């Protein structure tokens, strides 16, 4: 435990560095994948293509992508930007399917009635489809948050500083506490960002607050009514 008390500064600093790597990647992948998901939802022909590309991207092992990417971008292997790009790509790969599903989940009746009351195509997107796709989009975002924060640590083996540096350093010097600290800090960071996103979701989508807790009870009731 001695290691931890004398290195609190280091841990704090690495947490900030870790945030600086993962938060831009999370935001970028969310912002980019929403329109892609919408395309996949809107145009059937594009769905297969877009989802297949994402599937392939997702299949690529992270370490290999970190190393192959500079060959395309010309960036240095140890550049944090390289890592952010790679994490963003993974984020997109994870969330595009969810985002297509999110738009699919908006009921046709609602979309048609929005058109019927006079929404324009863009107005309908911002005013109806996006907010109603919100809950499913949020669930996708939460997955991306957890996976990105965890994945960012892998960058440490190619020399990009993050909480992952505690793993490589701890492994080389044989300090168990350092590695455990790194694991705990990573999880804390992931859960913290996750909680933040849930709070943000409640703030932006107040209509989801009540339904969530009653979901199961309501479902159980429905089943009983059906069979009784």
């Amino acid at each position, binding site marked *: 435990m001695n290691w931890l008390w004398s290195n609190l500064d280091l841990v704090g600093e690495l947490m900030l560095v870790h945030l600086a790597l993962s938060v831009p990647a999370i935001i970028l992948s969310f912002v980019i994948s929403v329109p892609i998901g919408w395309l996949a939802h809107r145009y059937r022909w594009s769905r297969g293509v877009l989802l297949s590309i994402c599937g392939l991207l997702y299949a690529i092992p992270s370490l290999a992508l970190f190393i192959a990417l500079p060959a395309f971008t010309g960036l240095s292997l140890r550049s944090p930007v390289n890592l952010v790009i790679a994490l963003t790509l993974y984020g997109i790969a994870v969330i595009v399917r969810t985002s297509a599903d999110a738009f699919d989940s908006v009921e046709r009746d609602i979309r048609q009635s929005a058109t019927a009351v006079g929404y324009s195509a863009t107005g309908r997107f911002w005013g109806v489809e996006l907010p109603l796709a919100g809950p499913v989009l949020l669930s996708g975002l939460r997955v991306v948050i957890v996976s990105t924060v965890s994945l960012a640590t892998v960058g440490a083996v190619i020399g990009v500083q993050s909480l992952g540096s505690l793993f490589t350093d701890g492994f080389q010097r044989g300090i168990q506490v350092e590695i455990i600290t790194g694991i705990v800090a990573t999880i804390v960071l992931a859960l913290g960002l996750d909680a933040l996103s849930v709070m943000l979701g409640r703030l932006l989508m107040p209509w989801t607050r009540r339904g969530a807790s009653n979901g199961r009870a309501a479902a159980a009731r429905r089943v*009983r009514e059906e*069979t*009784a």
Partner: protein
Amino acid sequence: MIEFRGVTKQFPDGTVAVHDVDIVIPPRKTTVLVGSSGSGKTTLLRMINRMVDPTSGQVLIDGTDVATVDPVKLRRGIGYVMQNSGLLPHRKVIDNVATVPLLRGESRRAAHAHALELLDTVGLDRSLADKYPAQLSGGQQQRVGVARGLAVDPNILLMDEPFGAVDPIVRAELQQELLRLQEELGKTVVFVTHDIDEAFLLGDQVVIMQQGGLISQAASPAEILAHPADAFVADFVGADRGKRALHVTEVDGRRVVVDADGRAAGVLAS
């Protein structure tokens, strides 16, 4: 003969679905359990093949308490037809019909041959045998469901709102088909519905149930219309209004039957 003796069912969450029910279901007749949702009619039906066990009381088939019979054996000897047909989506029509005989260990060939005959019985073309349920219309799926229920030639056929999910025209067709089948086969049919017209059409005995699993009246349709047991039954069957409150008026010397709204329903035969 199926007999309910003081049967009560209370679910773990406290809901009483069936309350102290005594009733006799005569053999080779159709008994229809009718009531709105929450009246416990499905629960009552499902106690016959032990899909639900009563909290207290007994269910007897030909004098044997079903609680003493292995539920799986019991179910394999009782036909069951449910809403949305309950067919296995990954099996062809023929395999769906042959499911229970195969479970009972009949040879595949015999089970399939019998299944084809059953398709004839329920009025389905044999060419449908190799289709999957999803490739059939709702009415056809329901017929397959009936064929499956008949596959082991059971004495008892339980039908849980079997025609609830099909459109009115197909429903009328299926109802007539069931009447024809029943004429031919003479099974002990227990039929659940929330549609009182369907109950009166199909039932030799109609059991009217109300909220909380109480039986309001069990009698023949004519008896119920003539002497509704209480205000609930009268209201439920609509004895005093709409299509049922018929009376006779004279039009040009002929006696015409009109309903409560004054619409002509028919001519009285003299």
